[in-house]
């Protein structure tokens, strides 16, 4: 599965808006993840996950920044996320189902913040892109 030129254009252009709000988008995505899929909290026993938590905000920013790294190297996501891929495979070992949950919550957050930009084609492009990112992050699992 690889992105068409049109899909890449959509993602890069939406990213320019997202990148001005990585804190907000990141925090909200994680809040949605932990509200809707409480099993994801099992990976963060050491975190304060309450609304307003500094850890939640910092981690949300980190996650969205990594998505941004993938966008900036959209032609070679595997190389941009190679270190993160190793981290998830050997250290974090997050069950792959959680990438689907996180991707869905990011889509919901984007739809909520960018209703006009999040057309059906944008929805398709982002769903596909996040699916590629998730694939890269789990490709060294075994």
């Amino acid at each position, binding site marked *: 599965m690889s992105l068409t030129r049109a899909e890449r254009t959509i993602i890069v252009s939406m990213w320019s808006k997202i990148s001005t709000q990585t804190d907000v988008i990141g925090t909200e995505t994680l809040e949605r993840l932990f509200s809707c899929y409480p099993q994801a909290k099992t990976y963060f026993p050491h975190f304060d996950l309450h609304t307003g938590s500094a850890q939640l905000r910092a981690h949300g920013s980190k996650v969205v920044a990594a998505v941004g790294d993938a966008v900036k190297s959209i032609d070679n996501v595997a190389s941009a996320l190679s270190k993160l891929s190793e981290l998830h495979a050997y250290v974090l070992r997050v069950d792959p189902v959680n990438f689907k949950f996180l991707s869905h919550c990011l889509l919901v957050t984007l*739809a909520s913040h960018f209703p006009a930009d999040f057309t059906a084609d944008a929805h398709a492009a982002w769903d596909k892109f996040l699916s590629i990112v998730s694939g890269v992050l789990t490709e060294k699992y075994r």
Partner: protein
Amino acid sequence: MLSAEEKAAVTTLFGKVKVDEVGGEALGRLLVVYPWTQRFFESFGDLSTADAVFGNPKVKAHGKKVLDSFCEGLKQLDDLKGAFASLSELHCDKLHVDPENFKLLGNVLVVVLARRFGSEFTPELQANFQKVVTGVANALAHRYH
């Protein structure tokens, strides 16, 4: 599944939904984002682009039908399996729809609600809706054999 308060929150938000539009948008997005779902709609005509899908009157009509059914289900949150029993049999025996598709549509519906309600569609409200769409998807799959 949901407390009385959570049910009220879901029903209140859904009461503001433009059923005519949201059904068509959800079904349309399903067909665009997950194009393999078009396999169930070969009689609908042109679904080749997003414009074709959203301009297609059969997509709008069927989307409304699906959402009307979902609305009926919302009135029976305590017995979704009962509420969707005959639809479950229909989807298995006549329509031959893989229940995985109910999950896909449920999540697309959640995205559509987020787009239309913005910040009003809080993480907590989303969590309640996720439970509802999961409940409906399970109810529709319940009679499969």
